[in-house]
């Protein structure tokens, strides 16, 4: 694996997605700002907007770095460089995961900080983490499908499926015993249910990345 080249490829992807990253970062910052106004409406709006930003990012980052590169025939340019298909896969996954993580951690970190310092909202913290990991899981799935599937249609299908799934997940989540009650608590309650779900989400993300690496390595035709 050529670390120098992988680094250059990652920087290249970040440079080419800079506008989208900047806009969504600003949206996230604005959403967090709304929460600082400390009233119910703005708080609610702020939370929703944060999630929309994370969901949008989960869709657009793989689209820009993977789907569009193939669609606009830029892939041959990248593969003409002295890299192996494994280098390409590593660079793509790292570029996506790192970028997503940075924006995700910034937004979620800021939200958590606000909740930690707001009295009486401690119960929201585990739930927030649980909910915030959902777009990350979606991102993992979309990235894996976009990379391995090599088709724009496949990626769109993954995006639509994950976007629709949020409503279903929310529906089932609020009916899981203990989840909604934990919200009312002024201190964070880390029930086994919540911890399990969080662990499962992190596991899903790891699985998506692992699957992407695995299936990419079995390909014989790159273009």
């Amino acid at each position, binding site marked *: 694996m050529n670390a120098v080249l992988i680094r*250059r490829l990652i920087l290249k992807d970040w440079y080419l997605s800079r506008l989208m990253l900047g806009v969504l970062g600003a949206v996230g910052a604005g959403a967090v700002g709304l929460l600082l106004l400390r009233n119910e409406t703005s708080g609610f709006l702020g939370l929703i907007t944060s999630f929309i930003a994370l969901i949008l990012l989960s869709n657009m980052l793989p689209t820009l770095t993977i789907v569009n590169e193939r669609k606009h025939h830029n892939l*041959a340019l990248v593969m003409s460089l*002295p890299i192996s298909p494994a280098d390409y896969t590593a660079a793509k996954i790292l570029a996506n995961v790192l970028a997503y993580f940075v924006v995700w951690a910034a937004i979620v970190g800021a939200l958590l900080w606000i909740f930690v310092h707001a009295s009486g909202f401690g119960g929201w913290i585990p739930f927030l983490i649980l909910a915030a990991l959902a777009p990350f899981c979606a991102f993992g799935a979309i990235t894996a499908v976009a990379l391995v599937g090599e088709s724009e249609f496949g990626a769109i299908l993954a995006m639509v499926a994950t976007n629709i799934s949020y409503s279903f997940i929310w529906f089932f989540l609020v009916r899981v015993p203990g989840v909604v009650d934990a919200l009312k608590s002024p201190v964070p309650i880390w029930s086994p249910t919540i911890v399990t779900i969080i662990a499962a989400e992190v596991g899903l993300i790891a699985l998506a990345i692992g699957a992407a690496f695995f299936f990419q390595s079995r390909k014989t035709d790159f273009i």
Partner: protein
Amino acid sequence: MTQTAVQLTGVGKDYRHFSLADVHLTLPEGQIMGFIGPNGAGKSTTIRIMLGLVHQDRGDVRIYGHRMPGEQAAAKWDVGFASEDLRLYEGATVEWHMRFIQSIYHSWDEAYARTLLKRFDVRPEQRVKGLSHGQRVKAALLLVLARRPRLLVLDEPTTGLDPVARHEVLRELTEVMRDDRRSVLFSSHNTQDVEQICDQITFIDRGRILECRDKDTFLERWRRLRIELPGGIAAPRLPGIVDVKQTGRIAVSITNAFDDNLPRAYEAAGIRVQAVEAMTLEEIFVTNVHARREGAGQ
């Protein structure tokens, strides 16, 4: 010691509607090879196999001794590739692409790159989106030429270019020849380009190599003979004759193994040889393809 830049042995690749089979190709360093074939013949597939972008089903592929596709990362340091489906990033400028390539290859020659910008009439600060097709092709070629790779593999580098641009590209390709350790392989529809600058020529049709020889042999061994037959007889198919077309007493025969014995053989059979004509590469190629297809019962 002359190294072999490209070596394909028994290469094959199967797709649903198309198969590449039994491809043997050798390009010693210091030479320019032209790769001619109709659309769908397998030129692009063969080139992609050379670059390791497509994994062959059978056969051995070596670029400067590196086995492809396994050792493609090492091999591609010495190879420059340009193709119709290799496009630059639309949102970025030509300058950005130059810096990007320069950051990877230490052989980048900035002075030469600036010269090429002028010769190709491309402004570096322009976004790729705003360039015409011809300028995009030239920009992509610039990125490949400016780092002076040992081997240039180009898939139809002059297709779609206006005559001036074509001339500029050919000029830069011949410049590569200054160094007898550098090689070029390019595919083209334009047989004139190939005839002009290539040392070796490979014909490909329907996934199979028809002929792979140095240019002189092609141009010296293929001839069109105009003959006059005595009344009533059909033109004999002498050895080496690939095609004969006869109407009445006049016939045109084409051979791919011409030497002075052939006109004598005709004369000995009582047939007058009116003229012996050289053939252009295009004529040779078309005849070759037709003869093969007819031979295969098409």
